[in-house]
């Protein structure tokens, strides 16, 4: 076990060092690349902390999709930065504040009971009634399904907000070359399989709608990059439907089961598993579509042309 502790300490130090390096990097591109590395290292740390589901989600969404979003924005704004620098007294003051807050939190953390109380007993006792065998999936889609519905709503709200920030059409970017197109042709189907597998695996082992959705979202981002798919104004209705499907099915099922003696979100025992799988499948597709739309960053329509004409 000691060897693993050495590894843990090294990884923990690497995390702290990387976090500092991300924010101290001169070049923004380098900062984003370091940030993606940081995300993957975080995922590794979470595997060590027996949280493989979260590690998958962090690697796929926290590092992968977020990294793609950051790089796309970096290219769009051309790396322009404000040249403002923070005056030294402010730097010292904020540094002292951050140090005080962090050490206060550290003291609170050290004083907290190690391996303290939790809900694992309650989860285990009710797992049979939840309809799925994997505890994290049971929490996400049954015990705390209300939170998960609202989390999908947050994604939906983000698309509405991003679309509402009207944007001019982007300057055309050069294609990435023949190798990229060839790669996309092989990788797309493979990644679709991986995404579907993660979704399917979620009922019994680490994986699930969010991880699967993120991989499928990455597929869509890849397709956008390779110009295998070009969003057109005519596709708007479909896109809207894809964003909404997850929230709509989830909300309707949640409310639909809530009549008579049952509460909202209280699936009938016999139907629990099929209903959860249905919700997960649709939510996966919605997450994929939403993440791709967030990457694309604007509504595919001639709204930008209007903006151009107005000035």
């Amino acid at each position, binding site marked *: 076990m000691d060897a693993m502790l050495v590894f843990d*300490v090294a990884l*923990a130090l690497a*995390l*702290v060092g990387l976090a*500092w390096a991300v*924010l101290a990097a001169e070049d*923004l591109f380098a*900062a984003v690349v370091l*940030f993606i590395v940081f*995300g993957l290292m*975080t995922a590794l*740390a*979470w595997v*060590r*902390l*027996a*949280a493989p*589901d*979260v590690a998958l*989600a*962090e690697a796929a*969404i*926290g590092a992968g999709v977020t990294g793609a*979003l*950051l790089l*796309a*924005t*970096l290219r*769009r704004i*051309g790396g*322009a*930065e*404000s040249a403002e620098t*923070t005056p030294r007294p402010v730097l010292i003051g*904020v*540094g002292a504040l*951050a*140090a005080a807050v962090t050490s206060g*939190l550290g003291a609170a*953390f050290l004083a907290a009971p*190690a391996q303290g109380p*939790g*809900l*694992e007993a309650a*989860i285990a006792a009710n797992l049979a009634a939840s309809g799925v065998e994997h*505890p994290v999936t049971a*929490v996400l889609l049954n015990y705390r399904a209300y*939170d998960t519905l609202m*989390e999908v709503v*947050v994604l939906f709200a*983000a698309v509405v907000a*991003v679309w509402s*920030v*009207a*944007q001019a059409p982007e300057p055309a970017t050069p294609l990435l070359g023949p190798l990229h197109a060839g790669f996309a042709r092989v990788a797309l189907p493979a990644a679709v399989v991986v995404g579907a597998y993660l979704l399917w695996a979620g009922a019994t082992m680490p994986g699930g709608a*969010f991880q699967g959705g993120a991989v499928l979202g990455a597929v869509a981002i890849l397709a956008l990059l390779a110009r295998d798919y070009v969003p057109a104004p005519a596709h708007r209705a479909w896109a809207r439907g894809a964003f909404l499907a997850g929230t709509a099915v989830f909300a309707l099922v949640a409310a639909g089961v809530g009549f008579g003696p049952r509460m909202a979100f209280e699936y009938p025992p016999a139907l629990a598993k099929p209903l959860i799988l249905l919700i997960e499948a649709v939510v996966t597709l919605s997450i994929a579509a939403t*993440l791709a739309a*967030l990457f694309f*960053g*604007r509504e595919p329509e001639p709204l930008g042309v209007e903006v151009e004409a107005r000035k």
Partner: protein
Amino acid sequence: MSPDLIYGLAGLAVFGIGFFRALTLAAPLRRVLALKLCAVGASFLLIVAAYRQPPVTADAVPHALVITGIVVMVSAMAVALALIHRIAVLERERSDG
């Protein structure tokens, strides 16, 4: 010494670095990065709260909470990045005349 202690402290340190930089960096894209690091650091606290010494399985509730947190964070970041992009476009238009 156990993994939860090591990573808990590392997570708090990451939070501190992110917090400090989020309040002192001027470039918006860097502030987004700092805030994401801050959130990752805060998530460590929940992951550590779920950790149990190996033969015992970990508590799944904080895991689900952190997955939710990751999705919420990517949404907020996407909105921030869209705003940053739009601001850059408008500023370029203004300086071009």
